[in-house]
Protein backbone atom coordinates (compact mmCIF):
# COMPACT_ATOMS: atom_id res chain seq x y z
CA UNK A 1 0.00 0.00 0.00
CA UNK A 2 1.39 3.37 -0.98
CA UNK A 3 1.71 6.35 1.38
CA UNK A 4 -0.79 8.51 -0.53
CA UNK A 5 -3.63 6.01 -0.46
CA UNK A 6 -5.02 7.26 2.85
CA UNK A 7 -5.50 10.78 1.43
CA UNK A 8 -7.85 9.74 -1.38
CA UNK A 9 -11.57 10.23 -1.02
CA UNK A 10 -13.13 7.43 0.92
CA UNK A 11 -9.81 5.71 1.44
CA UNK A 12 -9.00 3.99 4.71
CA UNK A 13 -6.50 5.76 6.97
CA UNK A 14 -3.53 3.75 7.91
CA UNK A 15 -3.31 5.14 11.42
CA UNK A 16 -6.98 5.77 12.08
CA UNK A 17 -9.34 3.03 10.93
CA UNK A 18 -12.44 4.90 12.07
CA UNK A 19 -11.67 7.85 9.80
CA UNK A 20 -14.00 6.46 7.13
CA UNK A 21 -16.92 6.45 9.51
CA UNK A 22 -16.25 10.01 10.61
CA UNK A 23 -16.00 11.20 7.02
CA UNK A 24 -19.45 9.83 6.24
CA UNK A 25 -21.01 12.17 8.77
CA UNK A 26 -19.85 15.28 6.87
CA UNK A 27 -21.04 14.28 3.43
CA UNK A 28 -24.01 15.86 1.71
CA UNK A 29 -27.45 14.50 2.57
CA UNK A 30 -27.69 13.20 -0.98
CA UNK A 31 -24.65 11.04 -0.43
CA UNK A 32 -22.26 13.00 -2.60
CA UNK A 33 -18.86 13.30 -0.96
CA UNK A 34 -17.13 16.61 -1.18
CA UNK A 35 -13.36 16.38 -1.30
CA UNK A 36 -11.41 18.24 1.35
CA UNK A 37 -9.81 21.41 0.15
CA UNK A 38 -7.33 21.74 2.96
CA UNK A 39 -6.04 19.91 5.95
CA UNK A 40 -6.88 21.32 9.33
CA UNK A 41 -4.02 22.43 11.53
CA UNK A 42 -5.92 23.49 14.60
CA UNK A 43 -8.95 22.23 16.51
CA UNK A 44 -12.32 23.49 15.30
CA UNK A 45 -14.56 25.58 17.56
CA UNK A 46 -16.50 23.58 20.22
CA UNK A 47 -19.85 24.06 18.43
CA UNK A 48 -18.65 22.41 15.24
CA UNK A 49 -16.72 19.57 16.88
CA UNK A 50 -18.04 16.09 16.02
CA UNK A 51 -19.68 14.08 18.81
CA UNK A 52 -17.64 10.96 18.24
CA UNK A 53 -14.26 10.56 19.82
CA UNK A 54 -12.04 10.80 16.81
CA UNK A 55 -8.76 12.59 16.25
CA UNK A 56 -9.67 16.22 15.35
CA UNK A 57 -6.67 16.38 13.00
CA UNK A 58 -8.34 14.02 10.52
CA UNK A 59 -11.89 15.40 10.76
CA UNK A 60 -13.32 17.41 7.93
CA UNK A 61 -14.56 20.85 8.99
CA UNK A 62 -18.07 22.04 8.14
CA UNK A 63 -18.50 23.31 4.62
CA UNK A 64 -19.78 26.64 5.88
CA UNK A 65 -16.43 27.43 7.45
CA UNK A 66 -14.69 27.00 4.12
CA UNK A 67 -16.44 30.00 2.66
CA UNK A 68 -15.92 32.54 5.38
CA UNK A 69 -16.81 35.99 4.15
CA UNK A 70 -14.77 38.82 5.55
CA UNK A 71 -16.42 42.15 6.23
CA UNK A 72 -16.00 44.72 3.53
CA UNK A 73 -13.36 47.29 4.55
CA UNK A 74 -14.63 50.77 5.10
CA UNK A 75 -13.78 53.27 2.46
CA UNK A 76 -13.84 57.00 2.75
CA UNK A 77 -16.53 58.47 0.50
CA UNK A 78 -15.26 60.16 -2.60
CA UNK A 79 -14.45 63.82 -2.24
CA UNK A 80 -14.11 63.73 1.51
CA UNK A 81 -10.84 64.64 3.13
CA UNK A 82 -9.06 63.06 6.01
CA UNK A 83 -10.05 64.43 9.40
CA UNK A 84 -7.92 67.31 10.54
CA UNK A 85 -5.46 66.61 13.28
CA UNK A 86 -5.76 69.20 15.98
CA UNK A 87 -2.55 69.57 17.90
CA UNK A 88 -1.92 71.52 21.04
CA UNK A 89 -0.86 75.11 20.49
CA UNK A 90 2.84 75.77 20.34
CA UNK A 91 4.12 76.71 23.74
CA UNK A 92 6.13 79.88 23.74
CA UNK A 93 9.08 79.52 26.05
CA UNK A 94 9.23 82.62 28.19
CA UNK A 95 12.40 84.61 27.78
CA UNK A 96 14.62 85.48 30.67
CA UNK A 97 13.54 88.45 32.71
CA UNK A 98 16.62 90.41 31.73
CA UNK A 99 16.29 89.72 28.01
CA UNK A 100 12.70 90.96 28.03
CA UNK A 101 13.29 94.08 30.03
CA UNK A 102 16.77 94.92 28.82
CA UNK A 103 16.69 96.29 25.28
CA UNK A 104 19.67 95.60 23.08
CA UNK A 105 22.57 97.96 23.49
CA UNK A 106 21.60 99.03 26.98
CA UNK A 107 23.58 98.04 30.01
CA UNK A 108 22.03 96.39 33.01
CA UNK A 109 22.46 99.54 35.04
CA UNK A 110 19.85 101.40 32.98
CA UNK A 111 17.48 98.70 31.74
CA UNK A 112 15.75 98.12 35.07
CA UNK A 113 16.06 94.35 35.06
CA UNK A 114 17.51 94.37 38.55
CA UNK A 115 20.84 92.79 37.73
CA UNK A 116 22.58 96.14 37.68
CA UNK A 117 21.01 97.04 41.00
CA UNK A 118 22.24 93.82 42.55
CA UNK A 119 25.73 94.57 41.32
CA UNK A 120 25.59 98.04 42.80
CA UNK A 121 24.34 96.73 46.14
CA UNK A 122 27.08 94.12 46.25
CA UNK A 123 29.65 96.78 45.37
CA UNK A 124 28.52 98.95 48.25
CA UNK A 125 29.22 96.15 50.71
CA UNK A 126 32.88 96.19 49.72
CA UNK A 127 34.82 98.25 52.26
CA UNK A 128 36.42 101.45 51.13
CA UNK A 129 39.98 101.24 49.92
CA UNK A 130 42.63 101.69 52.54
CA UNK A 131 43.73 105.27 52.72
CA UNK A 132 47.22 106.09 51.60
CA UNK A 133 49.94 106.37 54.20
CA UNK A 134 50.25 109.96 55.36
CA UNK A 135 53.98 109.79 55.97
CA UNK A 136 54.75 109.94 52.29
CA UNK A 137 52.55 112.98 51.93
CA UNK A 138 54.57 114.69 54.63
CA UNK A 139 57.73 114.20 52.63
CA UNK A 140 56.00 115.71 49.65
CA UNK A 141 54.82 118.68 51.68
CA UNK A 142 58.27 119.20 53.13
CA UNK A 143 59.77 119.07 49.66
CA UNK A 144 57.25 121.58 48.40
CA UNK A 145 58.08 123.91 51.27
CA UNK A 146 61.65 123.98 49.97
CA UNK A 147 60.44 125.11 46.59
CA UNK A 148 61.68 128.60 47.22
CA UNK A 149 63.22 130.32 44.27
CA UNK A 150 65.29 132.53 46.46
CA UNK A 151 66.64 129.50 48.33
CA UNK A 152 67.54 127.82 45.06
CA UNK A 153 69.35 130.93 43.92
CA UNK A 154 71.35 130.90 47.16
CA UNK A 155 72.36 127.31 46.45
CA UNK A 156 73.54 128.22 42.97
CA UNK A 157 75.44 131.19 44.37
CA UNK A 158 77.19 129.01 46.95
CA UNK A 159 78.30 126.59 44.28
CA UNK A 160 79.80 129.40 42.22
CA UNK A 161 81.60 131.05 45.18
CA UNK A 162 84.41 128.43 45.52
CA UNK A 163 85.26 128.91 41.85
Amino acid at each position, binding site marked *: MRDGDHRRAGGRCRRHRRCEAAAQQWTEPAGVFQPRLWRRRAEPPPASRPASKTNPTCCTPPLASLHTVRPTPRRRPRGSRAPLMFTSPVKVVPRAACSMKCPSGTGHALCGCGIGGQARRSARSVPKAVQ*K*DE*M*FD*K*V*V*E*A*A*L*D*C*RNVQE*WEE*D*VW*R*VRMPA
Partner: protein
Amino acid sequence: MRTSVKVHKLTTEDAMNYILTIKNKFLRHPEKFHAFIHTMIDFSRGRINTHTVIERVKILFDGYPDLLLAFNKFLPRGINAI
Protein backbone atom coordinates in the same frame (compact mmCIF):
# COMPACT_ATOMS: atom_id res chain seq x y z
CA MET B 1 66.16 92.24 81.49
CA ARG B 2 63.60 93.13 78.92
CA THR B 3 64.40 95.54 76.14
CA SER B 4 61.60 97.92 75.39
CA VAL B 5 61.13 98.74 71.74
CA LYS B 6 59.53 102.04 70.97
CA VAL B 7 58.08 102.66 67.56
CA HIS B 8 58.74 106.25 66.63
CA LYS B 9 55.94 107.79 64.64
CA LEU B 10 57.22 110.03 61.91
CA THR B 11 56.10 113.61 61.96
CA THR B 12 56.22 116.57 59.63
CA GLU B 13 59.34 117.74 61.44
CA ASP B 14 61.03 114.44 60.62
CA ALA B 15 60.10 114.88 56.99
CA MET B 16 61.51 118.39 56.96
CA ASN B 17 64.74 117.19 58.56
CA TYR B 18 65.00 114.47 55.92
CA ILE B 19 64.65 117.02 53.14
CA LEU B 20 67.35 119.16 54.73
CA THR B 21 69.58 116.10 54.95
CA ILE B 22 69.16 115.50 51.23
CA LYS B 23 69.91 119.13 50.57
CA ASN B 24 73.12 118.98 52.58
CA LYS B 25 74.20 115.77 50.89
CA PHE B 26 73.87 117.35 47.47
CA LEU B 27 75.43 120.73 48.24
CA ARG B 28 77.91 120.24 45.43
CA HIS B 29 75.21 118.82 43.12
CA PRO B 30 72.20 121.12 43.49
CA GLU B 31 70.68 119.78 40.28
CA LYS B 32 70.06 116.43 42.02
CA PHE B 33 68.26 118.10 44.88
CA HIS B 34 66.19 120.10 42.41
CA ALA B 35 65.36 116.89 40.53
CA PHE B 36 64.15 115.34 43.77
CA ILE B 37 61.99 118.40 44.45
CA HIS B 38 60.50 118.25 40.96
CA THR B 39 59.76 114.56 41.46
CA MET B 40 57.77 115.39 44.57
CA ILE B 41 55.95 118.17 42.70
CA ASP B 42 54.99 115.81 39.87
CA PHE B 43 53.68 113.30 42.36
CA SER B 44 51.63 115.89 44.25
CA ARG B 45 50.00 116.97 40.98
CA GLY B 46 49.18 113.40 39.98
CA ARG B 47 51.50 113.25 37.01
CA ILE B 48 53.34 110.20 38.34
CA ASN B 49 52.53 107.45 40.83
CA THR B 50 54.40 106.11 43.83
CA HIS B 51 56.30 103.50 41.86
CA THR B 52 57.59 106.10 39.43
CA VAL B 53 58.74 108.24 42.35
CA ILE B 54 60.67 105.29 43.74
CA GLU B 55 62.34 104.62 40.39
CA ARG B 56 63.46 108.23 40.09
CA VAL B 57 64.70 108.41 43.68
CA LYS B 58 66.71 105.21 43.22
CA ILE B 59 68.53 106.85 40.33
CA LEU B 60 69.12 110.12 42.19
CA PHE B 61 70.26 108.45 45.40
CA ASP B 62 72.59 105.99 43.67
CA GLY B 63 75.65 105.76 45.93
CA TYR B 64 73.79 107.08 48.99
CA PRO B 65 72.23 103.99 50.68
CA ASP B 66 71.57 105.91 53.88
CA LEU B 67 69.25 108.27 52.01
CA LEU B 68 67.37 105.35 50.46
CA LEU B 69 66.96 103.64 53.82
CA ALA B 70 65.57 106.83 55.32
CA PHE B 71 63.30 107.25 52.31
CA ASN B 72 61.80 103.81 52.99
CA LYS B 73 60.41 105.06 56.29
CA PHE B 74 58.21 107.57 54.51
CA LEU B 75 56.85 105.18 51.88
CA PRO B 76 53.39 103.60 52.18
CA ARG B 77 53.14 100.23 53.88
CA GLY B 78 54.30 97.33 51.79
CA ILE B 79 56.43 99.42 49.45
CA ASN B 80 60.22 99.62 49.77
CA ALA B 81 62.84 101.44 47.75
CA ILE B 82 65.55 98.90 48.60
